């Protein structure tokens, strides 16, 4: 197959533009990232600089790959990451525009690589359990309602890729934060730090410069793990609950 790629090239934090590349001899069965690998090999053999892009596992579980492909984070399909996208999804001769995730909180590093550590800092602010939960307890000693176990599992599927931010017209990180708050809030082990967690993560989210949610639901549509909007509603509930009850008042003061 042959394609006309229009790829965002950017040397450092500033500037950048779309550069056109013709590529042919691409098997329909290679993945999008493998196609970029082929492009890079050809660029390097011609003495040109390779296109920088992120990836790691290449099987949809690590959250490293990104890319906005023809205006859509992780490409045209729902429920999959860029690394799971294959070239047979495109037509021979297609023009394909490839851009980085764009948000103030994701500063550009180079070409298609952006710095997503803002998401890590939100986790570091409260997305954890401080006590050692030990080894797996005896079955049924800690009762967890089945629905909660399943919902927590669904929320925990978030791989932290940041596509929700990239897709959001407001560059909000509410789906990510909602998923991270939810999966701990739904389980007994997350209970003791429930209020402190949501207050601190909200504060960190705002200070990173993400936008404000307007319930556009574009994040849900772009999420490779199909994290649901209900996680945002739960984040709102958890935040209201913690603010109103202020059971953990010192923590809420710390995060002010």
């Amino acid at each position, binding site marked *: 197959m042959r394609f006309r790629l229009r790829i965002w090239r950017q040397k450092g934090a500033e500037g950048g533009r779309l550069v056109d590349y013709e590529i042919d001899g691409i098997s329909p069965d290679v993945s999008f990232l493998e196609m970029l690998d082929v492009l890079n090999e050809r660029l390097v053999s011609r003495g040109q600089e390779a296109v920088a892009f992120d990836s790691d596992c290449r099987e949809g579980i690590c959250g490293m790959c990104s890319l906005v492909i023809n205006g859509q984070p992780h490409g045209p399909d729902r429920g999959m990451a860029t690394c799971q996208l294959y070239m047979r999804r495109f037509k021979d001769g297609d023009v394909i525009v490839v851009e980085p995730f764009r948000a103030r909180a994701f500063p550009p590093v180079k070409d298609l690589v952006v710095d997503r550590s803002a998401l890590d800092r939100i986790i570091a602010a409260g997305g954890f359990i401080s006590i050692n939960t030990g080894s797996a307890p005896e079955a049924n000693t800690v009762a967890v309602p089945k629905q909660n176990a399943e919902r927590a599992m669904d929320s925990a599927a978030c791989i932290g890729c940041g596509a929700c931010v990239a897709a959001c017209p407001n560059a909000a990180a509410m789906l990510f934060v909602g998923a991270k708050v939810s999966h701990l809030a739904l389980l007994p082990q997350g209970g003791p730090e429930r209020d402190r967690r949501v207050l601190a993560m909200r504060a960190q989210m705002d200070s990173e410069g993400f936008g404000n949610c307007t*319930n556009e639901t574009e994040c849900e549509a772009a999420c490779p793990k199909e994290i649901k909007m209900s996680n945002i509603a739960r984040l709102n509930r958890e935040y209201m609950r913690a603010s109103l009850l202020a059971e953990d008042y010192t923590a809420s003061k710390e995060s002010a």
Partner: protein
Amino acid sequence: MGVLSSLLTSSIGRKILVALAGLLLCGFLIAHLGGNLLLIYGEGPFNRYAQGLEKNPLLPLAEVGLAGLFLAHIAVSLKLRHENRQARPASYAMQRSKGGRSWGSRTMLLSGLLLLSFLVVHVWHFRVQEHADGLYRAVMNAFQSKYYVLFYVAAMAALGLHLSHGFQSAFRTFGLSHPRLLPMIRKTGFAFSAAITVGFALLPLWACFWAKGPR
């Protein structure tokens, strides 16, 4: 951080404030439409209703409250929008929806700004100005102009568009995510938006084209 300052300074708190004011304004719309519909009963009933309102000692209080709701809704939503714009300094060369956005949600700012311009004209004309012949005649005379009618109908269409997204969005902001209740709220929101738009837009159309009243 106390509850109040959290409401005013955090992203989620500000969203809740906009949603709360927006829903309370929806309540005002119902009352306002009810009063307006008295136009159809003619000059006597309508002017009696209008004078009754003006004589009510609680009116100034209600007006201050209403102005407060509008101001809070507009000021905070514009602040949020400004932040949202700053949150993506470099825009995409190409952006395509993966499904999710609606016409209503895309145009919240536009429909809001159109409503704001409408509000200024509307409040100036029918509230601030004196009406020697009574409010009924002032309203009926104003709607003899087709341009004025067009402006009103356009503003009410914008209101319907605004609420088609805003109504359900407000409930999501309050944390509603029930799998059966939320779709019901969405449908209620669409029905409410349509009813409000048709109700308010019908009056100027009626006054211009069908009413046989004083000219």
